């Protein structure tokens, strides 16, 4: 399973790679990282249908997570990738907007990796 993680914080890559160390090693999961909405779109254009799941932060300079979500849901209809949005704790406004734009699931910051792993298993 290929997962695209979108976040403007570059250390997210190290964190994911360590958290999913076993899964990556076993070849169960593959992670790709984009550090802005624009980067994520560029990646999706080049590698269409590769990413099954997109994990995106909302609060990013330039193209925000919500813009990205909207574009993904409009552009990539078949098969629609699963998009999980990462929202800040208690940010109801962004939560509702993302829901309206068709987000499949939500995670709150700080990320609970145990919960994330369980969710990924059900998708698999």
């Amino acid at each position, binding site marked *: 399973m290929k997962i695209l993680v979108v976040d403007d914080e570059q250390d997210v890559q*190290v964190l994911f790679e360590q958290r999913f160390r*076993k899964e990556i090693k076993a070849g169960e999961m593959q992670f790709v990282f984009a550090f802005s909405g624009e980067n994520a779109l560029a990646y999706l254009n080049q590698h269409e249908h590769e990413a099954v799941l997109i994990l995106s932060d909302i609060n990013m*300079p*330039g193209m925000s997570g919500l813009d990205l979500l909207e574009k993904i849901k409009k552009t990539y209809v078949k098969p629609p990738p699963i998009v999980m949005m990462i929202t800040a704790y208690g940010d109801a*406004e962004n939560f509702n*907007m993302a829901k309206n734009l068709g987000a499949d699931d939500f995670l709150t910051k700080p990320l609970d*990796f145990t919960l994330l792993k369980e969710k990924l298993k059900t998708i698999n």
Partner: protein
Amino acid sequence: MNFDFLLIVFVARYLRTALKNTQQNSVWDDRLKLAMYVAIALFVASVIFRDAETIMAWVGHLCLLGCIYILYKETFFKPAKSLIVAILPYAVVATIIQFLQLVLPSFYRGNHSMVDSLKGFAVLWGIGVWMVTIKQKKELDKTNEKVVQQEHDNRIITAMKDELEVQVAERTAELTRQKEALETALQELQSTQAQLIQSEKMASLGELTAGIAHEIQNPLNFVNNFSEVSNELIGEMNEELSKGDIAEAMMIADDIRQNLEKINHHGKRADAIVKGMLQHSRSSNSIKEPTDINKLADEYFRLAYHGLRARDKSFNATLKTDYDETIGNIIIIPQDIGRVILNLITNAFYVVDEKRKFGIEGYEPTVFVSTKKRIDKVLISVEDNGNGIPQSIVDKIFQPFFTTKPSGQGTGLGLSMSYDIVTQGHGGTIKVETAVGKGTTFIISLPI
């Protein structure tokens, strides 16, 4: 005809008018009146009874001498003493002649022309003295009049002086009141100014708060995540060690060390933000110190951005930076210059967001912060691609209380304070380049 009675009438009449204005004249006035009438009556009698001429003459002389005696004796007539000098020779001469006529008629007849001329001299003497007296009296009156006039003038001058003093006192009191009112107003203005500066600081702190929360939350998340994952990794490392896979265990140990570095890095990041926040709100302790201007600018850039994002979800902008890494540390008051940079960046975000709301196709709100080192100065520029500043107001933007924001949204002190901080506080300059429809660039120049 008896000349003496006429003289008495004349003297009495003169005395009545001359002494009219003195005190206790009422008694003497009546007596003089009576004397006058009696004298007139006696004069009429002397005209009618021509036969008793000698007796009437004696009565006249004695009456005249009596009058002179009274004039001499009574202190009341002191001002009229000159009358005595005028009429006494005549009265004495006339009496002596009368006496000669009675006692030595032959001698009188033999020498009557000489004796009569003596009488004439006495009359002339009287007239002369009288005229001199009149003249003197006139002069005296004149002098008195002058003195009275002078006294009157003096009284007027004194009254005017008093009035003037009252007026001066009133004016002085009024001026003192005005001065006190002005001093109070000045004090109020100064305290209001201090409050405004404080509220401007608080307003910019408010702009920062949300950004600070976001900026602290992110490193904290990393600290938590990396420490958790490290904990797990140690478990895995122990597993590998017990299995005997030392190479794998060493790889995990490398990861753990890397994580500890990350924890340290993000801990420091949060620390710097808290320090920056404290520095921003602190008003005292404005000391110039070596500061990394790139770091300062970047910190405030991120804080301003996340602060705006947190308050307005629809806000977004592209952040571009170009920092000249050769600058190194420069000597500035970090919280003051930080405030200036924050202000310029917040303004830039505000204008690009305003332009975005027009919904222009293909418009990408962008704010560009850059630093550059010159030989003797450092330039910090904040550039936006907003609508620019119209030429009509570009001269006013650094004036206190000038704002284009809707009322209640801007204090109008941001740029004015920034100007003071840069020019007065650091001896630098702050310049604006703007093109309507294209954008604005603020360039701070600080001497090094």
